[in-house]
């Protein structure tokens, strides 16, 4: 019996020694931990491939991707109006097994089937920039467009007075953003009975067209006392045209966004004030919340579903304030 016990003991000791050696090899480095995490893939589908605004969205998304350890793929159609391209991209992203989609929808209603498709396949969608007409998304981070419209109106009154004619150049008639901004603007101005609002005209996101509309407006019988552009291209078109006038300083221009060209018009004072959105934050929050959706395994958030990202008013004086500098000039 003694021998048997001794034999078993020796075998056990050898076995354990072997195990210890094996484990010893796997003992991790004290500081760096080579943890294998499952890769999380997020598709970032934007309205347009190019443009500083979207590049900034992408920058924010990349910062979030790094922070939360997700892989972000950047997709967008060539044209902003190409909602069909977006539908195709959403479907492809779902089919390819992305864990979540961050979407800047180019249309309020037409993307619904694609969102249904994602919902059916249990792929959470986080909306940024604009809304859609369905509830089948996780969360949304949109520019507070109505508020932005109101702010435009307020600035216009401050610049030009309460007894004015207002010229509005919008961009695409069906755009949710355009509709909300104009609504906010018009409802604010409705509070002033002596304010006359000229019929809204559309630049179709084309600078040249916006310039031509501006020229047209300024040569009307009663030219507008203040010109308001509802997006970057419209504002730039207005500024370009206004700067040609010797009395450009007398024509208040209020607009949207801060493209490099707009900044020069802001610095020179052609554009008096611009409302700046926060694409960086939207990109960041979009990816951050996509990660949250994946982790919580929900397709629709329980609370804080819709967040409106506030806008900032910039002008020649506060352009280079530290808090605006980063917003307007994302790091190169």
């Amino acid at each position: 019996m003694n021998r048997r016990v001794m034999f078993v003991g020796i075998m056990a000791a050898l076995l354990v020694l072997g195990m210890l050696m094996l484990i010893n090899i796997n003992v991790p480095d004290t500081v760096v931990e080579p943890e294998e995490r499952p890769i999380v893939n997020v598709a970032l589908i934007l309205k347009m491939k190019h443009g500083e605004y979207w590049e900034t969205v992408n920058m924010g998304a990349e910062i979030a991707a790094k922070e939360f350890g997700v892989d972000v793929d950047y997709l967008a159609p060539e044209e902003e109006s190409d909602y069909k391209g977006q539908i195709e991209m959403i479907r492809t992203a779902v089919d390819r097994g992305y864990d979540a989609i961050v979407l800047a929808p180019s249309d309020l209603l037409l993307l619904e089937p694609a969102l249904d498709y994602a919902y059916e396949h249990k792929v959470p969608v986080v909306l940024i920039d604009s809304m859609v007409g369905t509830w089948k998304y996780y969360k949304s981070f949109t520019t507070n467009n109505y508020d932005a419209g109101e702010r435009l109106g307020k600035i216009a009154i401050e610049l030009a007075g309460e007894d004015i004619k207002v010229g509005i150049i919008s961009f695409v008639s069906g755009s949710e953003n355009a509709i909300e901004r104009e609504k906010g603007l018009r409802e604010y101005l409705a509070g002033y009975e002596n304010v006359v609002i000229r019929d809204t005209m559309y630049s179709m996101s084309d600078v040249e067209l916006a310039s031509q509309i501006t020229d047209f407006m300024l040569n009307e019988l009663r030219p507008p006392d203040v010109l308001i552009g509802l997006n970057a291209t419209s504002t730039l078109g207005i500024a370009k045209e206004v700067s040609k006038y010797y009395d450009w300083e007398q024509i208040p221009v209020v607009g949207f966004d801060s493209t490099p060209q707009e900044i020069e018009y802001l610095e020179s004072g052609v554009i008096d004030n611009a409302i700046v959105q926060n694409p960086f934050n939207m990109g960041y929050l979009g990816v951050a919340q996509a990660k949250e959706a994946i982790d919580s395994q929900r397709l629709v958030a329980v609370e804080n579903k819709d967040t409106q990202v506030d806008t900032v008013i910039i002008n020649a004086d506060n352009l280079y304030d530290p808090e605006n500098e980063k917003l307007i000039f994302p790091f190169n």
Partner: protein
Amino acid sequence: MKWIKRFGIRVTGFRFILAMSFAAVIVLSMTFVGFALNQKFIQTSRENLSENSQEIIEQVERNLDNYLKGMIDLSNLLVIDINKFKQLNLPELDRDIETLMRTRTDILSISLFTTEGKLLYEGTNLRMKNTADVLEEQWFTSAITGDGDIHISPPHVQNLFKNRHPWVITLSRKVNFRMNQSTEEGVLMIDMNFSVIEDLINEVTLGKRGYVFILDDDNNIVYHHQQQLLYSGVKEEKLDGVSERFLGSFVQTDSNGDSRILTIYPARHVNWKLVGAYYLSDLTAAQRDLTQFILLTMAIGMLIFISVSIYMTDRITKPIAELEDSMRAVERGDFNTQIDVQGEYEVVQLARRFNLMTMRIKSLMGQVVSEQEAKRKSELSALQAQINPHFLYNTLDSVIWMAESGKHQEVVKMVTALARLFRISISRGRNIISVKEELAHAENYLTIQKMRYKDQFEYNFEVDASVLGFNTQKLILQPIIENAIYHGIRQMVDEGEITIRAFVRDEVLVFEVEDNGLGMTTETASKLLEKHHEGAPESVRVGGVGVMNVYERIQLMYGEAYGIKIESEVEEGTKVTISIPATKGDHS
């Protein structure tokens, strides 16, 4: 505790206690060591982390310092370059700067301004904006008032030039140059692409989530990789404890409640503090792995050591258990048990002592037995020697009487019988004689008694001739016959008769002595053979002692299976049956 008993282990047993003590010591010590190791590891890894962090931040600072020092050296060269001309020679300066710019992509512009803010020279063909006003720029005013000191700005957007809004840090210093025979003052500006510094900062890794950020001497954030998020309030960088420190590490809880180690290191040339944040959660995974490893090692270790301890306990306690078994055998009376126990010295000694003790007890017991036997034997011899003197006087009286009365024939007969009787009695000291001799002894005795009692009785022998050669203890018939005569026949009025028989039945040699005398009650008969007779007075013994003696002698010699049986009836007679083993002797 019932289950333990079921396995045959006694809770109070040596083995159980020993094994349990071993196990307890092992478990406690391993737990202690494991715990200590784990704590030490956590502590060490935190210290390592802190040191690591410190080293990384120092490295960043060194790189930053090298870069800025290079820039300062460059600005020194440019100052010399600008000073060397009697008249500021812009084309020549331009050549030098062009050569420089070709190798240095990180320099975005080199410009020279008058103290009034007028641009004298720009090295990279940038067009200044009409709206630009350097007098309002902080780097410009610092250089003017700084009296030749080198000023390095925080990162900012350079907004002097058309169509370009790069993030730069600006080196500015007052510079003298000669123009139109007079020495003028101006400001030299070098814009360095901030992305170079950004890369310096971002190329280091501080765990998975860690990062480096920069504060100025007023603890404003100069650079942070999530600066936009901080400004818009999406994120918050908690600076508790950072503001009052300039160097060193400390543990802080960030705005999300995560613990992190912040390491602060001041930068040279600029009034910046580099702050490295390392999240402790990056450590916990490694810690968890180690803790698991330690737990596993402990479990396995305990398993092995407890098995070994059980084995050891068995080895130690087994000889003791063997000892116990042997003792139990001795307890049952088996004094031949000898313990052969292998094991520890003490146990072996114990076994040896026990063996010695058993042997001693055994020899003592043997001594007692032999002494007893010797005593018996001496008693026996004494008895055998005790051929009743009264019998001898009486017989000799009878001989004298017969001689006086001239009965010569009778005298010869009696004396002959007496001589024979004694010869057989003595029988050369032998204890065992043949049946023939025994019967002859009995007959001689009867002959003498018959003559003495004047033919008051008759006797006859009914002997199976085949038994004559058998062995028998001597002098077993005479006492019985004596008894029959004295107690059975002597008081009889009628003539008595004694019959002596000898035969073999079932391997047993049987003698029968039957008389037709007075007989006795069964009670009396059984009393005759009762033991513990010895304390009785001599007078009482007279009758019984002979029979009793025969009985004892037979039993002593042949065992309890043999002995004497007495059948008697009052007024009818008595029959005494003696049985001994039938063994053939070699008597001549």
